[in-house]
């Protein structure tokens, strides 16, 4: 059997194959039609086809000469000013090969470039615009310095919709002969939360056992809690039953091996759907934010979570 990551194996090769993001794909396809392209900034959460779109665009535009006219750099490996002055500049100033109108440089995780490097990039973008167009990719556009933002057409990638990911999961499962049951699929969709890369990785990992992919298998390999259990934990606390909810918390942390940080984030996801009056909801939200901040700062996760439960259990008693 060929060993391969499904995220790579099933990465769309052309713009038309990209799942979701239809508005963006449409605009990018227009650029391919006219064989022109401004400098672009793709911003959005991980696993939403940013890099894929950059590569597919280049492939559609260049056809056979793709290899010679395309370069991808990951800025988080080399984020200093030297990479801009050496690798990027060298690539940008050489003329495009074949009949390509220009070359394309995809700069992944551009928000990890230092400020100095971004300033150096600015002039390179302008000076060699006739031979090279850049596609900068980042999670948060606010980390890109304004002069660069003003030189780019900005595309905002949204999280993928569940049905888009579900379709793709079905397709890959069929291709790979994986037995994916509906509950297993739902659990993958929940955990992926709009991130295609996570979804496919989970599917591949869960299927490696060779058995049917069920919600149990998925939650076990992901190290996360079944959202049902989280809801159980919270509703027990809301009903004022602190001791019992503490028991559930201990099981989740110690037996299921869920990390406190993951647990607090899962709790956060459930808060909006809790049976709480608005005032309590907003207080709980504040406390949850504070707990996540403290845990991220290095505070003891169990203590913070217990305190949060106690606050929720306080409920109408106040």
């Amino acid at each position, binding site marked *: 059997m060929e060993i391969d990551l499904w995220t790579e194996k099933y990465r769309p090769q052309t713009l038309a194959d990209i799942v979701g993001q239809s508005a963006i794909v449409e605009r990018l396809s227009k650029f391919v039609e006219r064989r022109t392209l401004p400098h672009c900034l793709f911003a959005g959460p991980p696993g939403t086809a940013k890099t894929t779109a950059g590569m597919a665009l280049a492939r559609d535009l260049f056809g056979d000469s793709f290899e010679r006219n395309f370069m991808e750099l990951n800025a988080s490996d080399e984020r200093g000013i030297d990479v801009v002055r050496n690798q990027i500049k060298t690539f940008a100033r050489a003329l495009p090969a074949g009949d390509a109108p220009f070359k394309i440089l995809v700069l992944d995780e551009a928000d990890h470039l230092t400020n100095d490097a971004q300033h150096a990039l600015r002039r390179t973008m302008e000076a060699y615009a006739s031979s090279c167009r850049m596609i900068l990719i980042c999670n948060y556009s606010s980390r890109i310095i304004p002069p660069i933002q003003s030189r780019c057409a900005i595309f905002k990638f949204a999280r993928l919709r569940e049905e888009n990911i579900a379709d793709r999961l079905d397709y890959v499962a069929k291709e790979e002969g994986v037995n994916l049951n509906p509950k297993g699929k739902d659990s993958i969709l929940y955990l992926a939360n709009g991130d295609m890369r996570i979804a496919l990785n989970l599917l591949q990992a869960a299927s490696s056992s060779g058995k049917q992919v069920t919600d149990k298998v998925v939650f076990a390999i992901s190290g996360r809690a079944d959202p049902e259990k989280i809801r159980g934990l919270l509703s027990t606390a809301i009903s004022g039953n602190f001791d019992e909810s503490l028991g559930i918390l201990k099981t989740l942390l110690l037996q299921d091996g869920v990390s406190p940080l993951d647990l607090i984030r899962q709790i956060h996801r459930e808060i909006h759907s809790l049976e709480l009056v608005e005032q309590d909801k*907003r207080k709980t939200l504040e406390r949850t*934010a504070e707990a*996540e901040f403290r845990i991220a700062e290095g505070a003891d996760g169990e203590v913070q979570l217990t305190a949060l439960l106690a606050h929720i259990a306080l409920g109408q008693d106040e």
Partner: protein
Amino acid sequence: MNTRKLPWTEKYRPSSQKEVVGNIDSIQSFVSWMKSWNNGIPKHRAVLLVGPPGIGKTAVVGAVANDLNFELVEFNASDKRNKDHIEIHVSRAAMQHTLDGRARVILLDEVDGLSGTSDRGGVGAILKIIDYSAHPIVMTANDPNSPRLKDLMKRCKVFHFVPIDDDAVMQVLLKISGANPNQVSEEMFASIVARAGGDLRAAISDLEAVIEGRLANDEIDLGTRDVRRTVVQTLRRLFMVTDSAIARMVVSEGNVDHDSMLLWLEENLHLHLTTPLELELGLNALSNADLYLGRIMRQQNWKLLSYVFDFLSSGIASSRRKTPYRRVEYTEPLWPLLIWKGKKKREGKEDLISRLAPIAGVSMERVYEKCIRTIDSIIEISPKQMGKFAEWLSVNKKMFGRKGSRG
């Protein structure tokens, strides 16, 4: 080179000083300094052009060099500029004569972009070259307060450039689009000019996006106008709901970035939240959002961003308890504008500040607060003092008071 493929900002780069717009005074003095090189080496061998991006600093150097038939040698931030590189490359350019006997001008672009680590010793090397250069050295920079410029400013003649006014930007856009048969609506022109805020390069590049991309008005993210529209819509929808889950959805669908959301809410929240309790709750949510943004920036823990959006959506929506929803006109946040204006007021007084700071023994930042305001108010009471102060600090009288040409 095929000019058709060039971006418009390059294609329409001025080739003569006549085509350069704005900053007439600074440009005039710059040109006379350049011309003075024909009669031997002037007092200052180097000048520094300071001002925000896209207003013609680099362009004027190219244009004037072209007019006066100087050879232009350019070094910018995309070149390595540490001590060794500058000593070898720039120094060579500064000392040697041109092959064809033409005069030469050396342009060091974006000197405030000299990297602290990778360009170590760069400023020192430039300073040395200024002392013996046989050719005029022109530097450009954006930020007059950059510590990297401190030493350079002492040794250079400094010319300040200010944003181009909207009328002039409009004239240039009209001229460029006149050469292209495409129709651009008047509204579109106005929105491009407004967004550019005096940055001519940004305006030209937006015009290119509109004409070349043949994009309709609603198809392009043309900055302020469209951002404004989406923010206003999102605010309106947000204040209509009181359910926290729906509020969260409204804000994530609105796709407005957290910074603008925060500013707009701060400016407009009191229009919807009117009772003391509502205000307390709403502003508390806002302050929480701000607190978490601070934590995110300090720790680079972007996972917390989700809570910022919670505070900005659910937090705000659940604050409205009594006041019924009504449709109101929102005002654009003012304070970023105020900061910008404050900076602008200081601009043009850089000469004065750099002279006064060492005398008063305080930082450039403080000298404005501590000394210049005092001098300004003395002069306001007794205008005769202006000459004395100017003489004492050997600066132009124009530097003082509100009537100063750039003050």
